[in-house]
């Protein structure tokens, strides 16, 4: 499967007009992080710096987005694999620069993609506290220890997203419940060991 269409590689060569290598680097980052819907505004911001028309800026940004996402998707990690994505007649120095920039970022991008893949709400933090219940309406004097567990749960992580919604849930566990829970967690650990040792 080809990474990009021929027209898209042509659009990439607009980068030759970039003011500096760092500008190219910056743009690569932004194009990878941007979801497809936000590419339009990104192109509008990038266009002026490159002295190109709005249409050309859009083509460039879209091509760069597709290229970076493709490399991450395929899990390419070697320079040779990335270099051979480009067509024969592509500008040599630009090709080398783009490959270098991609290699610099590839593992951070892969981690980001993995951290933000769809999932159930994720646990982001957990705190606990042990209280001693000393009195209640049913018993005037007692000393019953109980555990309060606070789970911070993040709803939806978007790729390179900035303001995820985190909610806090506090649950109470009696000693018996905790023992049962630990039993269950122990069984999970045993199964994980069994899977790891296969």
């Amino acid at each position, binding site marked *: 499967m080809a990474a990009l269409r021929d027209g898209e590689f042509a659009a990439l060569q607009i980068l030759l007009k970039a003011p500096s290598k760092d500008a190219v680097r910056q743009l690569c980052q932004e194009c990878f992080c941007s979801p497809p819907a936000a590419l339009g505004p990104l192109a509008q911001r990038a266009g002026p710096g490159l002295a190109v028309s709005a249409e050309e800026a859009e083509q460039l940004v879209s091509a760069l987005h597709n290229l970076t*996402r493709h490399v*991450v*998707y*395929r*899990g390419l990690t070697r320079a040779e694999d990335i270099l051979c994505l480009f067509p024969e007649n592509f500008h040599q120095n630009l090709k080398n620069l783009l490959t270098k920039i991609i290699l610099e970022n590839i593992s951070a991008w*892969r981690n980001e*993609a*993995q951290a*933000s*893949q*769809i*999932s*159930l*709400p*994720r*646990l982001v933090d*957990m705190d*606990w506290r*042990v209280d*001693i*219940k000393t009195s*209640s*309406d*049913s*018993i*005037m*004097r*007692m*000393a*019953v*220890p*109980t*555990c*309060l*567990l606070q*789970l911070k*749960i993040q709803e939806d992580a978007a*790729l390179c997203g900035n303001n995820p919604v985190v909610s806090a*849930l*506090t*649950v*109470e*566990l*009696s*000693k018996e*419940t*905790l*023992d*049962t*829970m*630990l039993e*269950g*967690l*122990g069984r*999970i*650990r045993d*199964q*994980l060991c069994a*899977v790891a040792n296969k």
Partner: protein
Amino acid sequence: MGLLNFTHEPVPEAVSADMHNLNQLSAQQFSALTEVLFRFLTEPKEVERFLTQLSDFATMNKISLGPLKNIVKSILLVPNGALKRNLSSEQVRADFIALGLSEEKASYFAEQWKVNSPTLTRLAVGQTLMINQLIDMEWKFGVTAGSSELEKVGSIFLQLKLVIKKGSQLENVYVELTLPQFYSFLHEMERVKTSLESFS
């Protein structure tokens, strides 16, 4: 009437008369009634069964159900108060005698109280308010093979379903953990267990 252990509030007037009526029951009848009462106290949800058993007792012993219910209400004041205040069986016995019950019957009831109080105490503690009590936990784990961003992944995920009691309703909370998070969670829970055990 001297100072009572099971309550600091004045006792309803009818109680003395009810105790007097109780004294008229034979030892066997009192024992049967006590059994019905404790069965209800240890299983407070079985209201229907309790009322049926009371009704049967009334019929079998040729007592009217209405007065019997009043007597039972009076008797129950003592164990309910005793539970709240962690009273000993001697204190329960003393209270019944102070209310007018015969020594023999008071001793018998106090004996039954002693036998049943661990169960009753556990029940009362169990009824104590809990915030978002964790009722159940289900789990599954698997491997993510690929995603729309990553063709090949191979990472392990763990999903927990926590069943939580919010007020009178149950709510399910779904949470996903990575492997390092799971080990960290397990470690923390073991620390909690140590802490709870040191306070028990």
